[in-house]
């Protein structure tokens, strides 16, 4: 996936030696370059994503927030650069991905339970292993709806819950979430947000969350990654370390308000540039 496509003509310039990220880094992105219709979206972009943390990605429209996680997840090819997970390439890494549009992400010809078990079957799990893992998932998500139904028989929130369960089923090293709440009503958003936080506290899975809602981005995040307009670079990487579980009270804590305010300032500065 990380092969250099459209290699530049000056490829004989000696490559820069690989610079590892600071300790605790999970994903290292080096020299990432991506052109869209001849215009650079990312050019020589470097980034370190910490392990066992939630990193929220926030930035102006069209800066390529989703494209960034799609490139890391291998869904969008990159023009140049290198992306490593604990030093491994993508093909040696188990990842999970939650799409915004759950309707077009789940397979309507399979029962919900088979949708969730699908990545386990791909990974060659035996029937007994699949059953055991499914029981764990059902317990940890406290599922109250009938998983033997087809996805289209469930509500939007239930479908998105199933999508998250499917993404987490094979115990991924990294979970990508592309605006997972945007297609949900407010009640479901709150519910799934809490579920996601619970799962994170239980498993400590590295997560990358793209969000267009700043409050939500900060609320869930350990790190808020703020991007510039294109060609995109890192505007700032804010650390937000209020303890979990975070609750409604968190939203009025000075540290939360402070982080959100700072994020907004940086965002507005970048938009006006």
């Amino acid at each position, binding site marked *: 996936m990380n092969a250099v496509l459209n290699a530049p003509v000056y490829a004989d310039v000696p490559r820069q030696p690989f610079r590892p990220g600071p300790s605790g880094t999970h994903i290292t992105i080096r020299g990432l370059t991506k052109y869209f219709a001849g215009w650079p979206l990312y050019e020589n972009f470097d980034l370190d994503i910490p392990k066992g943390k939630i990193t929220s990605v926030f930035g102006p429209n069209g800066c390529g927030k989703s494209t960034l996680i799609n490139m890391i*997840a*291998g*869904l969008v090819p990159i023009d140049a650069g290198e992306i490593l997970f604990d030093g491994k390439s993508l093909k040696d890494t*188990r*990842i*999970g*991905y939650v*799409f915004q*549009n759950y309707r*077009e*992400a*789940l*397979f*309507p*010809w399979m029962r919900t339970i088979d949708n969730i078990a*699908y*990545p386990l079957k*791909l*990974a060659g799990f035996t029937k007994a292993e699949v059953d055991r893992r499914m029981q764990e998932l059902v317990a940890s998500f406290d599922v109250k709806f009938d998983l033997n139904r*087809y996805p*289209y028989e469930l509500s939007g929130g239930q479908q998105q819950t199933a999508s998250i369960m*499917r993404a987490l089923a*094979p115990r991924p090293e990294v979970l990508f979430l592309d605006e997972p709440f945007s297609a949900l009503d407010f009640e479901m958003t709150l519910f799934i947000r809490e579920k996601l936080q619970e799962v994170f506290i239980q498993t400590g899975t590295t997560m990358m969350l793209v969000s267009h809602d700043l409050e939500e981005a900060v609320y869930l995040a350990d790190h808020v990654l703020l991007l510039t307009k294109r060609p995109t670079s890192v505007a700032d990487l804010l650390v937000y370390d209020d303890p979990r579980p975070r609750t409604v009270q968190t939203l009025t804590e000075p540290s939360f308000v402070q982080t959100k305010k700072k994020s907004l300032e940086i965002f507005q500065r970048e938009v006006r540039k």
Partner: protein
Amino acid sequence: MPPGAVRRSIDWGKALPLVGPVVLLVLWDLVVRFGLIKAILLPLPGDTLATLVSGLLGGNLLTHFWVTLERTLLAFAIAAGVGMPLGIVLGSAERAYRSVEFLVDFFRSTPASALIPLFLLIFGISDVNKVAIAAFGAFLIVVFNSAYGVINARKQRVMAARVMGATRWQIFRDVLFWESLQPSFVGLRSAVSMALVIVVVAEMFIGSENGLGHKIIDAQQVMNVKVMYAAIMAAGILGYLLNVAFLFIERRVVHWSGR
């Protein structure tokens, strides 16, 4: 009304589909009774329906009905059995489909009846001929719809499978095939209608001893209009039932369609 009796309101909404046919039959009857159209060209609807019912209840119209049904289903089975796998394979290798797209579109646009003389040369005046040409016409529709079903598969479902580590073959087996089912069924339904049309035409004009097409042209030659109209209606019933049957199967198989 005695006290306590429940007044049942009749749900007229359910009777709406009957309005059209009843109006048509009444108009038909009036037109013939008042001599606007000669009875020698158009029999009374009552007589026609009586001929139809007695013919289908064990009369020889039933034999013709079965023969036409058999030919149609045989042609359709060949078209679906070859066309669907081929369409799905062509659709998943888009370059392959692009290279035959013109041929499919061209022959799909050519009236199949125009090819009857060609098929006569190849197969002669035989039963095989009628089935072959109907199968050919239906086949093109199936290939086209199945191929486009795969080509237009929801990209996000393919991406979802890929991100979960599915191989190309697994994506084909678990996603593309299923995604193509709904458009494939649209193709199958049009294909069975097309097969019926061609079979009836072939029965009329390729020397035939049986089938509804033969019955219609035969009755027309001897001006037996009652039998002619009854046979036409039998052909209509056959087409309608085939469509209903396919819609039923489609809802069962592609249960997620439209949801």
